């Protein structure tokens, strides 16, 4: 297992920058999730760590050693991809054996057999061992790919959206399984995804990548409660954080949409800001200061997600499933002022994170 560090990594394809000044540290045994939209540079980061791509600038360190000049084979990392991850024409067993049969590893035959069988058992694919890989379902394929990664006991696991081609139910099951596996192995994981649910539920730490820049690194709860800018606020949480433009006036938060709510933070009067508030930190109350109309109700069993229109703002909040509400009904709402995150309106940066 290993400690991974990226120092000031930049990567351009031609004149097009894909990664810009990336600094990242993954501790030994950590499950690190890199979250970002399509084209953010997630795969590129992973390929640089794997040694499949050379950074234009910057250093990759594994266990404190600069591995810039090392080839993929020498780095001893394992890679699981979204697709094309298994060798076609090979059986499942041959796929699992493949990394162990490499000349640089020299594992003897009995040992190979034992390790393959053990991994197959762990991942419940023993019955598939003699099957050709083109006869597998998507979920089985990804299990085998994960198996091929763990059979090697590599220093670090690199996973590029390994679950995103699977259907929702399977994805959820494998998510839990993968997380358990990581904890049992005590392995270091760098897991790439564009799915914030995956990131929140699996990661010990999350790094949010936006257009080649790492904008925030933190535990899931840090990132959720205290996003460093409006981009992160929007990309984590479902439904996402409400972002309302406005300003502070005489201790009240005044939204441009035409309502005022209590305010507890510090901000100079009149400065244009964006108020960020999680849906679960807002509530309906007949005595509340602001008024809106119910636009949509989604019933999620334990809770309802209510979409309100107040002026030209759209607000989402959660409420108890027992609350009786009708579309177009006028309601009154407020928020928990302690939970409001304040962003600078023009830069989108959180004012809480300081300069």
């Amino acid at each position, binding site marked *: 297992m290993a400690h991974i560090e990226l120092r000031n990594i930049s990567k351009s394809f031609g004149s097009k920058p894909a990664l810009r000044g990336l600094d990242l540290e993954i501790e030994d045994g950590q499950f690190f999730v890199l979250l970002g939209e399509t084209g953010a540079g997630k795969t590129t980061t992973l390929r640089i760590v*794997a*040694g*499949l791509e050379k950074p234009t600038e910057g250093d990759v360190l594994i266990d404190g050693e600069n591995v810039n000049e090392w*080839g*993929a*084979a020498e*780095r*001893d*990392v*394992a*890679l699981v*991809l979204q*697709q*094309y*991850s298994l*060798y*076609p*024409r090979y059986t499942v067993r041959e796929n699992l054996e*493949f*990394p162990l049969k*490499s*000349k*640089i*590893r020299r594992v003897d035959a009995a040992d190979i057999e034992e390790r393959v069988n053990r991994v197959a058992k762990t991942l419940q694919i023993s019955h598939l061992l003699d099957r050709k890989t083109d006869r597998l379902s998507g979920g089985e394929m990804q299990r085998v790919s994960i198996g*091929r990664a763990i059979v*090697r006991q590599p220093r670090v696991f690199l996973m590029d959206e390994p679950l995103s081609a699977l259907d929702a139910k399977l994805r959820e099951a494998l998510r839990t399984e993968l997380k358990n596996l990581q904890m049992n192995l005590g392995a270091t994981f760098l897991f790439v995804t564009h799915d914030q649910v995956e990131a929140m539920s699996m990661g010990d730490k999350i790094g949010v990548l936006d257009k080649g820049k790492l904008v925030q690194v933190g535990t899931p709860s840090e990132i959720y409660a205290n996003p460093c800018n409006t981009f992160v606020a929007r990309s984590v949480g479902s439904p996402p954080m409400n972002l309302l433009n406005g300003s502070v006036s005489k201790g009240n938060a005044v939204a441009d949409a035409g309502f005022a709510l209590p305010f507890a933070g510090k901000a100079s009067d009149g400065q244009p800001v964006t108020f960020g508030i999680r849906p679960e930190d807002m509530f309906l109350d007949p005595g509340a200061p602001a008024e809106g109309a119910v636009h949509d109700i989604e019933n999620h069993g334990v809770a309802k997600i209510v979409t309100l229109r107040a002026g030209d703002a759209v607000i989402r909040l959660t409420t108890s499933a027992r609350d009786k509400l009708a579309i177009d009904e006028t309601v009154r709402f407020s928020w928990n002022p302690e939970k409001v995150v304040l962003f600078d309106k023009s830069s989108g940066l959180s004012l809480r994170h300081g300069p």
Partner: protein
Amino acid sequence: MAAVRTRSEVALNRVAIAAVLIVTIIFLAPIYWITATAFKPRHLATTVPPTVMFEPEISPFVKLFLRRSQLREQPTPEEYAAAPWWERLVFDGGEKVVRDGRGNAQLSGYPSRFANSLIVAVVSTVMAVGMGTLTAYGFSRFKVAGEQDWLFFILSTRMLPPVVVAIPMFLMYRWFGLNDTHVGLIILYTAFNLSFSVWLMKGFIDEIPREYEEAALVDGYTRMEAFFKIVLPEAATGIAATAVFCFIIAWNEYAFALIMTRRTAQTAPPFIPSQVGSGLPDWTVIAAGTFLFLLPVAIFTFLLRNHLLRGMSFGAIRK
């Protein structure tokens, strides 16, 4: 798809089958003619109308392989009885087998020409496909400065008609002493097929996701090992299709072989028609030579037919 067919569709289907049959017969007729003539007795070979029913003979093939000369006088009955079966077939045709000083029957020019054809075609195909695959892999997987220009240049070598380059080539080959050598012809055909092979193989290799090799690299293999273990098996279909194309081109090549070879390295295509020129031609022997010449391509293509169906459609049909 269990199609429900209307009556008119059934009728149309019958017409289509009939049309295909007729076209097939038209295309197969010359092949049938050659094959039939190769097994005919000599006096039936040129009858008008053509003889369809006859007792097949092997004598054209015997004659094809032996060096013969006209009989001046009939063999004595003892001579005839003492002769092996193949020599009697030659006697029956009014000819005798030419023997060397030690009395061994001499072979005609055909077997060595046929062997030359095989050697040149097989070796040049292996070389063109081998080098073409490696080159194509390089172009497909690595950033090559001026890639498009290189590829165009490679293809452009095929744009000159052979007749244009034949005379300069002949002069160059004479200078290097490569005229009428196997090596000379192999180099020529390899060069000729290489551009084709690079282009075809690049198409096939581009289709193979590079994730496969990259997984092998990460799994602890060198680029070479990844190429042989992962890319090559995936490219088998393309390699087979390319090999068939190259083999057919090398096997059938006539113009260069005519100019560059005389005896030692002469291939079958210039040799077969040269037989027609001397005296009254024995069409059955020529047909036998042609028939044998057809076989290698037919066998090669037949063996690789499963790959070809996919390969020739250039990836349009998958799995």
